[in-house]
């Protein structure tokens, strides 16, 4: 039911972990099935220099987290904000319809991390 690309990311997830002293952290839970994803980013000169994730969820949730980190690493904050869940799913060659909600998780966690970064910036 999953594409080869999904399985490849699932078997070898990129950017797993947590950035210490991160510029921003986003954690979201999935209301539909109860899964949790956390993304931490390190931002320098408005560029996402590093990004890491941790996910408690299905194969699709792990693969979308992984591909999402890959898609935005090295991109500017504005570029990263344009990332949609559809783009995440497309990068994996598509997801089964019942699993589309899992791709929301990755994009949402990323957006939360960026919002967290901006809020911290505002305070400084």
């Amino acid at each position, binding site marked *: 039911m*999953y594409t080869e690309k999904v*399985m490849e990311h*699932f*078997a070898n*997830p990129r950017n*797993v972990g*947590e950035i210490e002293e991160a510029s921003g952290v986003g*954690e979201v839970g999935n209301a*539909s*099935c*109860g*899964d*949790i*994803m*956390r993304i931490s980013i390190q931002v320098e000169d408005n560029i996402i220099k590093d990004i890491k994730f*941790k*996910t*408690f*969820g*299905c*194969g699709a*949730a*792990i693969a979308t987290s992984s591909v999402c980190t890959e898609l935005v690493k090295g991109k500017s904050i504005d570029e990263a904000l344009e990332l949609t869940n559809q783009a995440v799913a497309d990068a994996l060659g598509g997801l089964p319809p*019942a699993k589309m*909600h*899992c791709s929301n998780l990755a994009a949402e966690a990323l957006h939360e991390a960026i919002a967290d970064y901006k809020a911290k910036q505002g305070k400084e």
Partner: protein
Amino acid sequence: MQPVYMDHGATTPVHPEVVKAMVETMEKSFGNPSSVHAFGREARKLLDEARASVASLMGASPEQIIFTSGGTEADNMAIFGAARGMRLKGKGNHIITSAVEHHAVLDACKALEKEGFEVTILPVDEDGQVHVEELEKALRDDTVLVTIMHANNEVGTIQPIQELARLAKARGAVFHTDAVQSFGKIPVDVNELGVDLLSASAHKIYGPKGVGCLYIAKGVKLTPLSYGGSQERRRRPGTENLPGIVGFGKAALISQAEMQAEAERLTRYRDRLIDGLMELPHVKLNGHRTNRLPQNVNLSFHFIEGESLLLMLDMKGIAASSGSACTSGSLDPSHVLLAMGLSHEIAHGSLRLTLGRGNSEEDVDYILNTIPEIVERLRALSPLYEGKEAVTSCTQRR
């Protein structure tokens, strides 16, 4: 890599002797069992033999067995048939079932609610067991049907059917049990259990899919689900699925011969798996430790999700199943695990291994060697796991 199939609760591989009997039936005995001529008589003979084999494995007489298209149809036939039949006789419109039934039972009861029946769903304890006192409290003068499964398909817990049936029948209700998971695996005797109706299915006992049966005790009246010819004493009309039924009969014969030794062998494997995997930190056994089917192992691994666990196991050639919301299609975790009081999160990390004929001691070793590293990998990915490396078991945490 030799694949290891440990999902016998979902379905079983068809026994080679069953395949042979079915192919022979299709090739040589194509006749209609209702026909008078030699072809028909030959088919009738095979039908009668299969009925006797299935009946014998549950201590019933052949004429008490009605062949169906599987466990689901048998459950529906029993529940709709008994409930509607009893209401027609003016006995009432109250049904009792349990929270851990298969959907074939639960959803049939829900459908009857729309026909004006009242349904009481009995709770279970943390092991998944129905308590006799709960049934005692729920029974009413207008209770017409009690349907409680013999052994649970997810956690393997065996219910005290004998006492439950005695109680229900003493109050004038019809008692049905879904024995799809226990039939052919542990002793199932309709007289000892004292049930009025019992469902079984062929594909869980190395027979073909799409065949099952309903045992109907003498004197129990059911309104039929469908109408047509005089097959199966008009309770299930339609030309019989003879190859399937012959396969079911053969599978029942083989199960009867092998059941005791097989149950002992699988219980040993089951206990090795449970004891071995429980040594990992943050693991919980789901279901009763001893009062469970010989073939059933069900554990929750805290901090990880079941579907990703199944995918990792699949990459290692191991076939299993899970009650996780992410595998359910409906995005709800298993109703059985929730009824047992498990939190959403713990139900999420559940893994069911169901043993069977093809499994060996080496398969058990392989699983015991493979699961720890997979669990470790997934926990390293989990945002819930941080700081939990220090051992506090999840039962203590709850």
